[in-house]
């Protein structure tokens, strides 16, 4: 549920609202960042930058354009991709490379919420390869529908419907 009141408070420069929103969104955004950069320290730095941007640019969020979560998601993915392109990252020896969120999830020993963890684990176990790819590109990598269709050589409409099915399955398992 989107906290419209909190967002308004944030836009008015209320630090407590910011902290509440951090509690609500930081872990999921951290998951996105970590899935892209695969480094806890770097992911932390990026997360910090992302939330500082959220604080500093709160006024530029407009609910007509999309969800608040989506807005932070875009900031986080852009910051992470910038990091991947940076010299520092290229020079860094990458020992553990996760191809996508599934690798991350499979390697992870951490689950913040037990009930969700069970659902997500079950989900990963039965996840179809096409779903794995769709979710990775659309959600974790921030590809557009069009880019995803080209990447997976799939009609635009199919991206939409297939992804819908993938997410429905996730919701089913999480609801169990």
């Amino acid at each position, binding site marked *: 549920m989107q906290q419209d009141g909190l967002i308004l408070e944030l836009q008015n420069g209320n630090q407590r609202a910011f902290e509440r929103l951090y509690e609500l969104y930081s872990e*999921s955004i951290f998951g996105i960042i*970590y899935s892209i950069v695969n480094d806890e320290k770097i992911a932390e730095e990026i997360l910090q930058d992302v939330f500082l941007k959220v604080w500093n640019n709160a006024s530029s969020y407009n609910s*007509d*354009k999309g969800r608040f979560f989506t807005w932070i998601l875009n900031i986080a993915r852009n910051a992470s991709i910038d990091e991947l392109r940076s010299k520092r990252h290229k020079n860094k020896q990458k020992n553990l490379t996760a191809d996508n969120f599934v690798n991350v999830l499979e390697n992870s020993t951490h689950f913040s919420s037990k009930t969700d963890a069970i659902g997500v684990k079950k989900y990963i176990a039965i996840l179809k390869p096409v779903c794995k790819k769709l979710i990775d590109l659309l959600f974790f990598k921030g590809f557009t529908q069009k880019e995803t269709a080209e990447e997976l050589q799939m009609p635009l409409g199919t991206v*939409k419907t297939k992804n819908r099915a993938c997410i429905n399955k996730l919701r089913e398992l999480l609801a169990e």
Partner: protein
Amino acid sequence: MDIKEYISSGILELYVYGALTEAESREVSRVLKEHPEVRKEVEEIEIALQKLSTASAPYNPEALLTSIRSKLGDKKSIALPTQKRTNWVAYIGWAACLLLFVGLFFLMQDNNQLRDKLNAERARAAQLEQQIADARDDAEKAKDLLAILRSKNISRIPLQGQAPAPEAYATVFWDQEDNKAYIDGKELPEPPSGMVYQVWSLKLDPLTPTSIGLLSEFQEDENKIFTLENANQSEAFGITLEPEGGSETPNLDQLYVLGTVAAAP
């Protein structure tokens, strides 16, 4: 619009991802605001996706909030203090203004006090100068008198008190060479206001009075020594009280003092 079909089209998932074009997203936002069931669906998708990505986080980054908070503090300490600083500048400005006025006020008071003091001192100095000048005049006069008294050409004629003022007494020092008569009126009573002493040179046979002058400014003269011209062959001197301005002939009822010139040796 068939809302069920709209929901099942899969556009809402792409909306949450941020995978739609801006125009498409705006359209979904609009529909979402009109249809609560679309909103509910979007929120459920969002929660599911958040759970999925939360599971990808290596740990809960809640500890990071402290350092982020301190950087918000930085931002605020840049943003707020500038406001505060302007306030301080204003406060300091007003305070300085106030102090300046208070200071000016005291300076002005000080200045006025000093000016008053200076004026008082000036007045005193003028008084002292006047006193010195007066004293010098007095000394000068005394010296002159002394010179006159020592002069051998001077005849001293005592004038005795008469009926209106038996206690009165005066002396005429007559310099017959220079035709000057010096009247010492020290022992004459103060004339009443509007009256003046008039000095007469008298011939005794027959009695002919000739005015030789008035003892004007009698009160003001400290020494009460008056210098008058007297070219007459005086046989006696008399002083009468006359109305201001003097009289043609003496009022003998008001003859205060009278004395005859001793025959020349």
